[in-house]
């Protein structure tokens, strides 16, 4: 539990280091334009702000994971068209956010993903088949959240921001050096829970990082109908939360920004709000028709800002990547996709009795009765 010493230390930090800065709003407002470490043409960015370029080893891993993630995303989309998945919200185009954010996490940190963040989950190490359990329709969450410290994918928008803040605050109370990263979209910033979470996090100085993947649309509703704020990152000042506006198609910038947020939290300085400007190349899901609300020309513009091509150009120019390595990686991605495809094409046997097993820690008498009735019904009808 929180010791008095810690409370005093925390109070001192607020009094001397932050109070005067906060009164002036210093350090709370984001940059006017998105921070970039690598520009869309693959050259060193000229608006890096305080972000530090990750070391080559990290850059190469960001690239590798984006290539694998993109191939996984394509495979999942194909499986949906084949009827193997009930639905799949693609993150194609948001690859830098998916991978950059996750690689910035330390082992003990927690990830709070949404339904569009399956690539992030797989990048964190979850078995792809377990990660797709929700979207295949087998169970609501197919992986063990404690194994990789990943909350279940959250469907009600904004609600998991509060879970992340609670988890981060608990870590502080228990003196665990542990942060929580919550992923949300531009639409979720309009939800009341997001407001409450930012406020609670700031008041408690919880080690939480909010990464808003601003892809321009909440299903069909464009950002202009979502907010009148100059940027979503600009909202941070209202909570006393330092904010960063980054190029969400620059994996290095996303990595560096999230890492900075984690470090701030770890240092007892509280939460960070990051807005990453990106774009959803595919429709909201396979059930959506994006042509009804956006032009193909806009999609083409963003295809030209592809996060993988950008990093590949940079790495190649820096002599960190050659054609052989890229070919080997492409082969690795194919093997990965093939494994996912093969395993997803195997029908899983679901146990109907499991519906009753986890409602409570132990099934109630009434649930036992209903379970027995269902099993008897299935036996009678030979289903």
């Amino acid at each position, binding site marked *: 539990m929180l010791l008095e010493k810690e409370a005093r230390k925390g109070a001192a930090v607020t009094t001397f280091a932050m109070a005067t800065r906060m009164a002036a709003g210093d350090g709370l407002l984001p940059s006017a334009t998105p921070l970039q470490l690598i520009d869309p043409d693959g050259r060193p960015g000229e608006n890096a702000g305080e972000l530090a370029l990750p070391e080559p080893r990290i850059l190469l891993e960001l690239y590798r994971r984006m290539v694998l993630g993109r191939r996984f995303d394509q495979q999942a989309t194909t499986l949906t068209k084949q009827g193997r998945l009930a639905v799949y919200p693609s993150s194609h185009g948001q690859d830098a956010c998916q991978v950059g954010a996750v690689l910035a996490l330390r082992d003990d940190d927690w990830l709070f993903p949404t339904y569009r963040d399956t690539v992030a989950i797989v990048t964190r190490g979850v078995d792809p088949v377990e990660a797709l359990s929700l979207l295949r329709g087998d169970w609501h969450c197919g992986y063990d959240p404690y194994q990789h410290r990943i909350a279940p994918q959250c469907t009600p928008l904004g609600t998991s921001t*509060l879970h992340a803040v609670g*988890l981060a605050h608990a870590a502080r*109370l*228990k003196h665990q050096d542990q942060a929580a990263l919550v992923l949300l979209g531009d639409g979720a910033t309009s939800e009341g*829970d997001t407001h*409450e979470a930012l*406020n609670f996090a700031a008041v408690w100085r919880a080690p939480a990082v909010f990464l808003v993947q601003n892809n321009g649309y909440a299903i069909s509703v464009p950002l202009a109908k979502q907010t009148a704020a100059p940027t979503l990152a600009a909202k941070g000042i209202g909570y006393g939360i330092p904010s960063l506006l980054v190029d969400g198609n620059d994996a290095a910038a996303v990595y560096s920004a999230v890492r900075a947020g984690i470090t701030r939290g770890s240092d007892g300085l509280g939460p960070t709000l990051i807005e990453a400007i990106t774009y959803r190349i595919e429709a909201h899901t396979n059930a959506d028709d994006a042509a009804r609300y956006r032009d193909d020309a806009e999609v083409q513009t963003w295809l030209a800002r592809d996060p993988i091509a950008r990093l590949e150009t940079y790495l190649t120019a820096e002599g960190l990547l050659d054609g052989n390595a890229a070919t080997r990686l492409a082969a690795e991605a194919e093997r990965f996709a093939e494994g996912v495809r093969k395993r997803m094409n195997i029908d899983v046997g679901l146990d109907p009795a499991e519906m009753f097993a986890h*409602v409570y820690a132990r099934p109630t008498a*009434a649930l036992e009765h209903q379970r027995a009735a269902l099993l008897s019904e299935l036996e009678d009808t030979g289903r």
Partner: protein
Amino acid sequence: MTEVLSPAGEAGQAGRAGETAAPVTMAGALNAALADSLSADERVLVFGEDVGALGGVFRVTDGLAAKFGEARVFDTPLAESGIIGTAIGMAMNGLVPVVEMQFDAFAYPAFEQVTSHLAKLHNRTRGRVGLPIVVRIPVGGGIGGVEHHCDSSEAYYTHTPGLRVVTPGTPADAYRLLRQSIDCPDPVVFLEPKRRYWSKETAALTPDGPAIDQAVVRRPGTDVTLITYGGTVQTCLEAAEAATAEGWDVEVVDLRSLSPFDDTTLAASVRRTGRAVVVHEAPGFTGYGAEVAARLTEQCFHFLEAPILRITGFDVPYPPPHLEHLHLPDVDRILDGIARLQWDDNA
């Protein structure tokens, strides 16, 4: 994660065991339960609006922040969804939050967190993530409260699988049920009948006794079963006494646990008496009593001498303070209900 809580702490039970039982209010009993749980298990936290220095608007958390420190008993920003949502995250990280919603209707902003996450996370994760959270909510009327301070919101919660919903009718049971709720691996919505906060009882406070999911017969009788909970337990006991003048020997069953429902105790009582009336403050239409009447009819049809009746609040938004006495089921209305149980058909 769901291996919850060590046995009762030394300070709590051992300290009290040797003492002569003194009169205690329900608010005092709840305060003692929180203090004893905080002593017994360092994972237990108490938080909400005004629960710190003030001790809660009903003083249920009085003195706890001073005794256990602000890291364990603390005020939150004024946002109910935030309170429940962050409690969920804390429980995911191994803590045992006991949170307070200030009033029944002020808990509604948290409804999505309660129904979509608190109730479902254990099921969503195939039992891997348990949420041993207690949500304390003062409910019901009878205190002259203005609008939004007097709702009986139990049916919203009992209709949500994954939640336990309990409500005490007496001070001793308030202590017992709250200790049991904090010990419970499932999320518990703990409804406190606010008009009974100041009712007194002379009884030893102990978590032992009827389990968290058991109903109890508060008054044995042979002619008719009054089925009730929370604030109307006392009203029904008074009605049962008054009924003796009419020659009726009335049994009163206090449900304690609204979800799950104790079919065993209730069916046994109704089969014994052959008549039953469900009493609650909440509106009758699709209210909790409808479920009670339906399931006991299904289970006891051949034992019934009359349809199971409901004596409830009217199907109106909770009335203003000067009219609430007309809305709340009272002794006369309960006796009228008993009188309508087709006694003449037996003659």
